[in-house]
């Protein structure tokens, strides 16, 4: 009798990449729920649009590349990319923004480079940056938190705004974004940047209602949600703790130094942590294993670098938030960092690589 032949090891811990991806998707739930609570249906609609686009694009490219579709279409990676794009977009951006962004992310950034595991850049961030550079107007249609919006942004209103640019009642996006005082509202980061540019101190700036009682109305809770999801992922060992910790630490140190030097022109450390895409970037994007560094030392270096870049772009750059740019820059440097942070192999002397 002949037996079944297999190569060792014969056992496996039963983890699978799709499971990992699914876990990450679940972990975004607290943040997404906070987003929904403070900013309405906009992002959920975009997430839905992006996911549908992602599946269609993935299917098309996989069939063109003659890849096992059943295997790879539902590995969760495309859905995760779509989810992240949907989360990042301004809630009231037109529908084609998420469609184009996702198409770019899946087809060009991911599949044209060889599909899952071969893309040098994080697809979601590359897609987002492409949109930001190509459609600056639409990409800055940031909607203020619902509590500050005069128009009732229910599901149908949001949907029609995204699809047509006007609510059911006929309000335009600009009208929605205009406060009762007649001032167009932006994100806290944007407001701060504009005000600082106008010569106002941070203390004067945070009088603006978008900052709310703490750091940034709504945004702080969204970030807290992502922080919670991230801690869950670290607990589940789905992501390495080194990257987010070093990233947040780096951002903290940078903002702390400048805040200590000139509190008038610098935002607080906690404002940097809990506004914009800080937590999303730290736990969900920077930790993307494909585009990040693989060694622990490398992960720490990437995190530190990303924190510094985010801070620099936020304070000195042309854009209010710099997480996407910082992450792309880190993606570029990750292979080099990996090259120089190889661990010492057992039985080898240090430096004897």
């Amino acid at each position, binding site marked *: *009798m002949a037996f079944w032949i297999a190569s*060792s090891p*014969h*056992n496996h811990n039963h983890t699978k990449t799709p*499971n*990992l991806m699914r876990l990450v998707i679940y972990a975004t739930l607290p943040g997404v729920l906070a987003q929904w609570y403070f900013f309405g249906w906009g992002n959920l609609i975009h997430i839905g649009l992006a996911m549908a686009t992602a599946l269609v694009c993935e299917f098309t490219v996989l069939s063109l590349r003659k890849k096992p579709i059943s295997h*790879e279409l539902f590995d969760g990676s495309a859905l995760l990319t779509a989810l992240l794009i949907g989360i990042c977009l301004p809630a009231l951006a037109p529908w084609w923004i998420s469609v184009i962004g996702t198409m770019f992310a899946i087809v060009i950034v991911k599949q044209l480079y060889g599909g899952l595991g071969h893309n040098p850049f994080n697809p979601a961030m590359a897609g987002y940056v492409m949109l930001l550079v190509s459609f600056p107007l639409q990409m800055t249609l940031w909607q203020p938190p619902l509590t500050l919006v005069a128009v009732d942004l229910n599901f149908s209103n949001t949907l029609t705004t995204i699809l047509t640019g006007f609510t059911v009642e006929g309000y335009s996006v600009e009208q929605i974004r205009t406060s009762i005082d007649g001032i167009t509202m932006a994100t806290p980061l944007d407001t701060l940047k504009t005000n600082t540019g106008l010569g106002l101190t941070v203390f004067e700036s945070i009088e603006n209602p978008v900052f709310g009682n703490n750091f940034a109305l709504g945004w702080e809770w969204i970030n807290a949600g992502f922080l919670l999801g991230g801690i869950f992922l670290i607990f589940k060992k789905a992501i390495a703790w080194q990257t987010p910790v070093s990233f947040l630490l780096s951002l903290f140190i940078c903002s702390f130094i400048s805040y200590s030097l000139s509190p008038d022109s610098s935002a607080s450390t906690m404002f940097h942590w809990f506004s914009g895409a800080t937590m999303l970037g730290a736990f969900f994007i920077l930790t993307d294993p494909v585009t990040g560094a*693989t060694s622990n030392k490398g992960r720490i270096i990437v995190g530190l670098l990303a924190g510094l870049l985010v801070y620099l772009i936020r304070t000195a750059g042309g854009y209010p938030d710099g997480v996407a740019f910082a992450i792309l820059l880190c993606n570029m440097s990750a292979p080099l960092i990996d090259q120089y942070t190889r661990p010492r192999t057992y*039985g080898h002397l240090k430096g004897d690589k």
Partner: protein
Amino acid sequence: MVESIIERITRGHFWDFHGGIHPPEQKFLTASKPIKQLTLPKQLIIPLQQHIGREGDLLVSIGDHVLKGQALTLGTNPMMVPIHAPTSGTISAIKLSVIAHPSGLSQLCIFLDVDGEDTWRKRDICPDLGLLSNSEIIEKISDAGIAGMGGAGFPTHIKVSSKPDINFLIINGAECEPYITADDLLMMEHSDAVVDGIKILDKLLKPAFILVAIEDNKPKAIKAIQQATANIEKIKVCVVPTKYPAGGEKQLIQILTGQEVASGRLPIHSGIVMQNVATCFAINEAVRHDTPLIRRVVTVTGQALDKPQNVWALLGTPINFLLEQCHVHAIENQKQPVIMGGPMMGFSVSSELVPIVKTSNCILVPSKVEMPSAFEKESKEVECIRCGQCSDVCPSQLLPQELQWSAKAKDYSQLEKLNLRDCIDCGACAYVCPSQIPLVHYYRIAKAEIREQQQLDLKAEKAKVRFEARKLRLEKEKIARQEKHKKAAAARKAAMNKATPEATGAKSAVAAALARVKAKKASQGLAQNRDNTPTSPADLSTDIADDQKSQVSAAIARAKAKKKLKAEAANKAPSSSESVSETLKSKPEKEQEAATQQPSVGDKKAKIAAAIAKAKAKKLAKSTEITESDKATVNCISEKAVVEKAVNTDDKKARVAAAIAKAKAKNKALAKANAKAVDEQSIETNESSADGNSNSTKTDGNSSQPSQVAQENTVANKTDNISSNPSLAGSKSNAAMDKKSKIAAAIAKAKAKKKLKEASSIEKTDQDSV
């Protein structure tokens, strides 16, 4: 330093190694059941080689009846480990059979038909260890065929006879692989025997400390060993945390001592020796009870078995016997894997007849529920997402994901840089890989290919050295040959200048040739009034013996006379150069042959001479008669036939000579017709031959000179467009020189013909050939 390590160990503090995993242990399946004694199987299949090294020399043959414990092979080399008959019986076959190998290789095995008597050979029980010297103990270990029983199978007697200062003797009872409890049970049931074995090792190696390492998931074994070693100060029982692969040699050394074994070196270099507990047991058996290694504890386990348990298996027991004994129930499943060894590093065996060997510690028959990945036919491998979980668990701190890229790309230099050779095949990386990449499999292939490449490189290097040596040798030989040739030439020259009969003969030939040259020169000068004195080897003429001069001069006179006649006749006859040259094409070789045959018969010289004379007379007549070109052609053909005939028959030399003479006559006629062209040609030829280029490609590419003398003659003949008669005349006058002159004549003829051809072609290409 050693003391601080011991302090730490006594406190129960250990170092940790990088990575490691915690797969489901599943040791409960067998850990609580005693080791079962099995009935004797019907047949044992005993592979000759069960260790790392070489198989021993066969001591038995088919049909032999052997007793239990009798040696079947003999180790004549340290790397040869003998095997023994595990029970009494008859050897039924010695043939290739599938062995315990990942690739299902076959190897020479002894098939032992068990007689059921289980009769021991005579044994010498050693009552007191003190009576034995170390070398006697080592000899006993060597004779008992003990090889490392932890898995590697390294000959134990080599490991225990190493001399340097040993700091630590580590007894490996970690047994980190899931499922396996063989060492655990052995320590539980035979702790005293194991400790006795350790004492023997202590006697041999004299280590500073003995550390018995046992993972903390074997509380009973720990207790048993602790009790057995309670009154021995030197032995420390180290309870190490359970983590796979803590039982790996390098990992265990790191756990216990904090030291790393440098890459490419052995633990012995750091003063550490490690032995498996089962080996200790076997050493005790061998030294004290004179029992060779014929059985071992094997864990037969897995949820596909009804009664998984540890058994005492005789070496050579086919695994189907073990499975029957443990009530296998799911084996009808076509895809049922049967794993020899643990789930992490074991290999699936291809046949149920694979026998238990010295290194087999476990037979694992998992059910599909407990180990689904072992049943998968197609790899579920998906793309690596560089999650890095593999490098987190790698005990060698490698980067498995990068190794994987390079292994797939066959980038062997990069694999070297990434230290693939430090991979211990533990399988932790593949175990955790979420993309289900069979990483170890890729590394094995890459390692095998690198090894193959290295062997090829080594071969190529050797071949290169061999080639260089050969080149050098050939060069030397060539130089030596040239030297020899030079000497020979010098000797020949010297011999020619001596007055011996042979020398005179040789000289006379040369003289004859020179005479011919002179004659020709003279005649040419007359006929064409051209001042084309050829640069003949005049210097050689000074060597000519004086006594032959008269003969030569006579020949010259005759030749001159003939030449004049012919020249007149030829002027009248318009030669059909084309047809003649065509018919003559095949002649030179044949004539050459005839010429070479001629030397064999020396007694017919007179007849030949007569024939030649006749031929000459005829020639003269013919050359004057034949004026029509067609007639000449016909004549040529008939002559050719004659020549061919002559070639085949040795006794018809005369005719050959006649034919030759005739051919010459014709040639001369033709040559005359093309006198001008030929003349120019001959000058050229002469110059080149005078330079020493005897094989001048311009004129005589297809004529080969059989001897030095012939060559010298050729030099003369080349310039001789008219006649070779003088040479024949010369040969007549000198009997000893006859053969040579004939050869010369043949060569001369061939040349003449060639020239003829060339002359005809010159008409077309004029000076091109020159």
